[in-house]
């Protein structure tokens, strides 16, 4: 049921107008934040153009989620990354530079897994 929700998960479009996730210090590692800023935030922020993407995930909302919802969101993020669902294939065709590189995927996975683990301790 899972996971379908993340139809527009990461997207793609990084522009100078995009702002970084707020309150990022408490939740994101510096490495993860850099990847999110460059590859995900363009769609998954209030300024994103795709409503589906915003409904699926708003990075800025993560610090305000209650614990269970945050763990579930991190679990969704991990699932989406493991299945290579984001950034969407069609978008990568248009903007090849937005493809998530293996190292970037590793950074995001490592961050999401360790964050979820820390919440479950």
């Amino acid at each position: 049921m899972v996971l379908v929700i993340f139809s527009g998960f990461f997207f793609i479009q990084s522009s100078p107008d995009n702002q970084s996730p707020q309150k990022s210090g408490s939740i994101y590692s510096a490495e993860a934040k850099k990847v999110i800023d460059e590859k995900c935030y363009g769609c998954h922020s209030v300024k994103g153009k795709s409503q589906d993407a915003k409904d699926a995930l708003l990075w800025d909302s993560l610090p305000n989620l209650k614990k269970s919802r945050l763990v579930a969101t991190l679990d969704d993020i991990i699932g989406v990354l493991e299945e290579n669902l984001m950034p969407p294939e069609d978008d990568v065709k248009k903007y090849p530079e937005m493809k998530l590189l293996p190292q970037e995927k590793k950074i995001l996975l490592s961050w999401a897994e360790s964050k979820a683990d820390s919440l479950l301790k």
Partner: protein
Amino acid sequence: MKPVKIILIALAVIFIAIQFIPSGIPENKPEDIKSIVNSSLVTGPVLDQLRKSCFDCHSNQVQFPWYSKLAPSSWLLANHIIDGKSRLNFSEWEDYSNREKIGLLEEIKYEVGSGNMPMKSYLLIHRDAKLNSEENSALLTWADEATAKILK
């Protein structure tokens, strides 16, 4: 022979022929220690409700309806069961990590709370699987409590 008769005979032949194509419905397996049934996470009326409303697509304990033996409905059923179990299988609950369990419980809350589950197409035939408002609330409360137990 009239064209209508020829069409009917052809349809009957096709219908009989497709019965020999395996449906791909997964076979039931005995419940073991990994099942949510054997955990302390759920008991009583909520467990009964899960069996009645969810287990046919989300467990290894499917109550196969009569149409599970008939193609093409058996093919659709096979797809539903395979897809449902790939997303959540209560019979393999203990194989999920705590993170995954919380993700699934949150998803249950979302799908049940928004009325997406049980699926409307399933309820057309399985009317007893429909959740009334009390059953719906009980399931949501259970999901909250189960989440809290895991987070402790």
